[in-house]
């Protein structure tokens, strides 16, 4: 059926054209180097296929876009080979495997769609390289829910920002520049009057919390590992309880009382954390302590959470997995239908216990995020510059989304998805192409375990 047969031409249609790009400058390019996905990037495409960032940004952005184009060949046991041979070998490994583990999952939406399809036909288990940290948030959503907000709301409304256990900028360098100290805001707020409080952490770079007028942020230091006690105390104080302790983890109770009062008085406070900075066991309980405090505050005023951090496509992989299978990672198709189990499907556990019998690792954004060392048959579909402590059985270089091919990515606040651009010509295949080829090879050779 031809497409035009399906359409009513309609006399009233017009098209919105996209802005024509200058000859060699691409504007409003999305930067996937951190969870903020700033899309004010301008990139100059030089004839050498090198890319140059020509608009304001951050070091992460420059490092990401100006990485050299490396064309490396697929390898089997370290020896260069054809794509076809590598694909066939990978298909054989997966077909011979009872419980293949697909981990890393450093990809975007379209890549993850392909991964989900192969996982279903191979009966694979799925885990993302950042699951330890993203589960600290996911488990709270599943246990209690939360009240959260998004970047544009923060940019235009926040009057009190509470930052818990992090400096933010190590993860999201431009957060303060774009969301807090922006000069103009929708509702006529003088943004330099915004208050910033850092709660927890030691020796953090709090200079970004200084307002353009030079007003310093409040800094209440404690060890990150003490945050369970500190956030519980703040929750109690916000709920109107009295504490007999004079200090909590070295922070004077009086200072926490003052913070509770400021939160009650604020019209639109935002409490933010980076789950990977809360790197201790059961940190999800700390996140829940924060989110329950926020829910309490909303009885009378407005206050919202804002989980930050995010990278390597963690939000994209989770969202895509959730709509296709019904579950975020860690999940599994081993039984022929999707199952979800954050404990049992942990990469570390599956490798150590010997339950998994092959590993397919994906790191398309970042050459440094290579797989954990294991004696299991290992396939890596990864960044061309990846270097390994133990050479995988099969290595197939794949393109970097947002540079080598288009894609779609979820921002850290999960409400906004942005298109990724193709900025240079590369012979390296996309992850989706390689995955689809592996699936085809499994079917053609009758290797499909189904």
């Amino acid at each position: 059926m031809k497409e035009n047969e399906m359409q009513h031409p309609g006399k009233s249609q017009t098209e919105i054209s996209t802005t024509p790009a200058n000859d060699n400058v691409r504007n409003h390019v999305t930067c996937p180097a951190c969870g903020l996905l700033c899309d004010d990037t301008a990139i100059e495409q030089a004839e050498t296929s090198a890319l140059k960032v020509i608009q304001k940004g951050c070091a992460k952005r420059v490092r990401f876009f100006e990485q050299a184009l490396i064309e490396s060949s697929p390898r089997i046991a370290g020896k260069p080979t054809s794509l076809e041979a590598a694909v066939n070998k990978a298909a054989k490994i997966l077909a011979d495997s009872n419980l293949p583990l697909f981990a890393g999952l450093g990809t975007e939406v379209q890549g993850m769609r392909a991964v989900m399809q192969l996982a279903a036909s191979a009966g694979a288990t799925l885990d993302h390289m950042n699951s330890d940290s993203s589960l600290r948030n996911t488990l709270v959503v599943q246990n209690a829910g939360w009240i959260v907000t998004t970047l544009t709301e923060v940019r235009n409304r926040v009057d009190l920002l509470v930052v818990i256990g992090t400096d933010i900028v190590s993860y999201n360098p431009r957060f303060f520049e774009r969301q807090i100290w922006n000069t103009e805001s929708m509702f006529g707020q003088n943004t330099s009057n915004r208050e910033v409080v850092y709660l927890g952490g030691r020796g953090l770079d709090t200079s970004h919390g200084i307002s353009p007028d030079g007003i310093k942020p409040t800094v209440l230091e404690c060890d990150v590992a003490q945050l369970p006690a500190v956030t519980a105390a703040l929750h109690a104080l916000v709920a109107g309880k009295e504490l007999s302790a004079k200090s909590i983890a070295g922070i004077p109770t009086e200072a926490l009382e003052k913070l509770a009062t400021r939160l009650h008085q604020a019209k639109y406070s935002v409490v933010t954390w980076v789950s990977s900075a809360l790197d201790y066991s059961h940190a999800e309980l700390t996140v829940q302590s924060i989110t329950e405090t926020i829910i309490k505050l909303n009885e009378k005023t407005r206050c919202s959470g804002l989980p930050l951090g995010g990278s390597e496509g963690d939000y994209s992989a989770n969202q895509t997995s959730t709509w296709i299978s019904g579950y975020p990672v860690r999940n599994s198709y081993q039984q022929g239908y999707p199952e979800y189990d954050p404990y049992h499907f942990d990469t570390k556990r599956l490798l150590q216990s010997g339950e998994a019998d092959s590993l397919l690792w994906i790191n398309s954004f970042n050459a440094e995020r290579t797989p954990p060392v294991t004696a299991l048959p290992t396939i890596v579909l990864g960044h061309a510059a990846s270097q390994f402590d133990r050479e995988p059985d099969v290595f197939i270089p794949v393109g970097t989304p947002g540079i080598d091919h288009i894609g779609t990515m979820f921002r850290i606040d999960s409400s906004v998805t942005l298109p990724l651009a193709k900025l240079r010509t590369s012979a390296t295949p996309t992850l989706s192409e390689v995955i689809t080829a592996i699936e085809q090879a499994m079917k053609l050779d009758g290797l499909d375990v189904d």
Partner: protein
Amino acid sequence: MLIKLTGGRVYDPAHQIDGKVMDIYIRNGRIVEAPRADEKISQEYDLRGKVVMAGAIDMHTHIGGGKVNIARMMLPEDHRADPVAHTEFCRPGCGHAVPSTLTTGYRYAEMGYTAGFEPAMMPVNARQTHLEMGDTPIIDKGGYAMLGSDDYFLRMLTAKQDQNAINDYVAWTMHASQAIGIKVVNPGGISAFKFNQRALDLDELNSHYQVSPRDVLKALSRAVHELGVPHPLHVHANNLGVPGNMETTLKTMGASEGFPMHLTHIQFHSYGTEGDRKFSSGAAAIAESINKHKHISADVGQILFGQTVTASGDNMRQFANAAHGSPKKSVIMDIECDGGCGVVPFKYKDQNFVNALQWAIGLEIFLLVDDPWRVFLTTDHPNGAPFTSYPHLIKLLMDKSFRNDMFTKLNLDAQAMSTLTSIDREYSLYEIAIMTRAGAAKLVGLHDRGHLGVGAGADITVYTDQPDREAMFAKPDYVFKDGELVVRNGQVIKVTWGSTHTVKPEFDRGIEKDLKKYFDKYHTMNMENFKIRDDEIAEDGRGKVIVQACEGRREKSE
């Protein structure tokens, strides 16, 4: 390839065909004229004794986008109870309250549905909505873009900008978000909640913009009409779920000053305050008012008993309802100065007074609205119940004794407050075909769907006529999508990918100059990235964009 469907009993209300035995011919995915005698029939289906209708269309179902995926993510316990293994044709997934996208498409098709429309697509979140709909197989889909609490629009109202400028913004939004309709949720109220207002009645002012919900409804209903968009403004009114909200709803019907409006999940907006518990049915007054106001249509948003989850753009009301949730957890979001969302799981119980009365109120509305072209069969999936309960709902409408039997199982106090058993009406097959096919297609503006006339897309469902209407509608004998047999005996046998229906009304592109400045100043994404290109929907060759005709710009406002 010429296919003949022979001798079925056809219900095609768009052509006033009510159970006539006739043949239907399909070629290249379309219904065609009877061929010449010398033309070869490639395939024939003997449908003698069978009931034939167009594929059903769900004009209001939450199948994609941020709040739906939050609901999926927060309810692993619900999915665990309904795992779906792969079959020869279908990939695995899971079902119940908010099924995975793949399972959603399969299950709709297996019930004879060939299209579903996501009614709360936030423009800033539209890309995600289309991604999820793009992974929903077989059925066609589309989305209604949510406006009415977005800062740009409310600013326009505050500044008393002329209607033409508003029309341009509405049209621009429809293009950018690839929408087929415009939805307004708690007009102005999602924004008001961000300024800490906890309720907003029709004539109350948003404290910042000094604009009332009535102002919002007037401007948007007129814009949609003047742009020639077939689907009237889709309205989720203020005060959802509040006892006594029927007064707001009755006033809302007049708020558009005659411009067409569709009032969605009206059951949730039809509550009085009579009785000891100050909660009563407003169905009679609501239905009477719908009967009188010909510019108003409604879908019901029937509740059915069991576990589900409510997912809505109405963060103000969802925050207020969170305490009633079960299991007790909820996600409430403010989103991008554009909208918001609230997700609250609910378990409706027949022994709960309020739930039992909600059930009765929904059915009373169905049965008291005279014109089946202006009332539509929905559960506001998943808010009142999962869409998989439609066959049960159809039986409740078509079978009075079944309905009355169910009624006797309700909470006794609720029974005492309802007049349901005094209503004798039973829907006919023809009326069901209006509600779920011809009427829905007309309302949404799908010119080539919902009917079986020559030129229509060959979306066709074939049932065995059974006295048990639930069994009949749960498992069609055949479902054809664009002329391809996709379901046999209630099971998917072929997976296709449906299309995405949109409209692209004409507008003055000059508005982009101001919008670009606005985005650069206040937003965290570039205006160009806000727009969704056709090829993002048609990617992988799986989907495509169908542009349904607008009737052209109606009279230009002075």
